[in-house]
């Protein structure tokens, strides 16, 4: 009993710690003024009204979503088959893949952005495409790790062999057997990519800045004008993230044949992700 009490106490404290910043942000976004007093002087929805009436805000949300989803789709189409190919048919390339996909972690966003600017400014390639390419590179580690682990877990090579002997072509085996079995890995990778880059700031700001106002750049601009308004942006951003994450989870796990272990892993990474995203946002 005592053990379960203390563990639930620690858990509650942890949940509280994670939620407090968000709750306070929410309260700030609905208060008329909360500067010189302990409690807000009054409650209002005027900041939300003002925010949603601003066409620039709506545009920034749409831009962010288009950019992230577009890149995500490109990642899924190009990266997923590549990882599968490498894992199954080129086991020797694996040892080069590990350090390669980790490189984006080693290169700070500022350096990458500067490099991209120097290379592509003045070239016919539009900078939005360059931005998308930058995010593509940054998404590699998330995708590679989650899909690679998933492939190992289901012993993809043997599954391919078994299906080929049973008369399936490589494409049939990929679509009918491999994809459904690495769905969870793809979903985790997609969610990580999506939640990380919906709020991407560094590269976007350096490459395009005010010319391509994403939700984060909009928020930064508003923050200088009004704290309540930017809190409203944060809350909206969060709800949007939660909603889209829920849709992705729902869409990909309709049939839950997978072992419990796999699902626990997924939920864990989603909550982790939300936590890290919120910290990141509130730190700026």
């Amino acid at each position, binding site marked *: 009993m005592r053990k379960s009490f203390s563990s639930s106490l620690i858990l509650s404290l942890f949940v509280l710690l994670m939620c407090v910043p968000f709750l306070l942000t929410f309260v700030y976004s609905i208060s008329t003024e909360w500067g010189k007093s302990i409690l807000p002087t009054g409650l209002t929805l005027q900041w939300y009204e003002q925010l949603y009436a601003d066409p620039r805000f709506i545009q920034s949300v749409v831009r962010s979503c288009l950019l992230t989803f577009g890149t995500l789709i490109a990642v899924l189409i190009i990266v997923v088959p590549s990882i599968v190919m490498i894992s199954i048919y080129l086991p020797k390339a694996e040892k080069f893949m590990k350090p390669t996909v980790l490189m984006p972690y080693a290169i700070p966003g500022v350096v990458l952005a500067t490099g991209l600017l120097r290379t592509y400014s003045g070239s016919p390639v539009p900078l939005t495409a360059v931005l998308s390419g930058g995010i593509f590179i940054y998404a590699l580690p998330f995708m590679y790790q989650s899909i690679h682990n998933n492939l190992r877990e289901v012993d993809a090579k043997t599954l391919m062999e*078994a299906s080929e002997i049973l008369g399936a072509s490589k494409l049939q085996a990929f679509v009918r057997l491999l994809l459904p079995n690495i769905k969870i890995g793809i979903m985790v990778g997609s969610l990580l990519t999506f939640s990380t880059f919906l709020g991407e700031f560094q590269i976007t700001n350096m490459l395009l800045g005010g010319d391509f106002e994403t939700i984060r750049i909009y928020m930064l601009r508003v923050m200088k004008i009004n704290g309540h308004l930017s809190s409203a942006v944060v809350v909206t951003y969060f709800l949007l993230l939660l909603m889209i994450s829920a849709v992705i989870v729902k869409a990909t796990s309709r049939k839950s044949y997978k072992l419990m272990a796999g699902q626990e892993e997924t939920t864990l990474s989603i909550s982790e992700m939300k936590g890290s995203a919120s910290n990141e946002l509130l730190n700026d």
Partner: protein
Amino acid sequence: MSYLTINDLSLALGGRKILHHLNLNIEKGELVTLLGPSGCGKSTLLRAITGLIPVENGRIVIDGHDVTRVSPKKREIGMVFQSYALFPNLSVFDNVAFGLKMKKLGKSMIQEKVIRSLDMMGMKEKADAYPYELSGGQQQRVALARSLVVEPKVMLLDEPLSALDAQIRQQLRTELRALQKKLGMTMIFVTHDQAEAMYISDRIYVMNQGTISQFGEPEQLYTHPDNEFVARFIGNYNVLSGKQVRSLLGETNFEAGNGSYALRPEAVRTAPGTKSIEINGTVTDVNILGNIVRYAVKAQDVILYVEQINDSPDHAGIGENKTLFVDGEDMISLGKA
């Protein structure tokens, strides 16, 4: 010509030679085991037969058709893996139906064949279950049903029982052998377990370092090993040099050459026979393996392993003397020096 013929097959993986000029002949309805230690190339040979690994040179002929350059799906081969390799996203029924769907058979035909095949493996009740809901033994039964249902010409089994518990392993191997005989299925069974190989096979090919060391019926392999490797791998033989044999048996009693000799541990007896030679030694170790007791006896500076049925009255402990009798005819010359 045999039903399945492998002629002068060689293969290298990543620059390393795995198989060297192999020849194999398997008749229709025969169960042949490839037996050897891990790393001897037996699984690679199996994959070469399926077509999953391309061969360097040599020919593979199945039922009169040269399939050496034919893709895996057109070879009409079934395969069962050690790790079962069931498709985790499909139910038991759909796993078994997969091969038939790939052949584009009609729905009612598939239904009928799948149920019959599952019934044969005693898995009909589990048709709607998913692989993760089944035990290892049940999963392997489904995997067997999945390969049998497409009626392959040859069925390959890559250590299919090695991941199972001892009891289930024995039960399944008995069933597998009965089923194979009933269906007249041609099977190649890979294992590193000599007891399993002896139990299940019509013939055994013993493999060592990518070559065939010896092949033949289990009885023949056991009683007449051709070389030291087979003698040690198949029967825990005592392998002795000519010099050791001379000092053990005495030069006058047995005319030993310079090559090595193999002596079965159960051929060393404790009671004298008509032509037996007496050896006196000291017991250095005793292991009880259930119905068999295994002694290590030191005589004339040679350690001799002796196996006896565990009801023998002349039981000896470590350090005690033991009198043994060996018949010169039981000494098998392995030929090479």
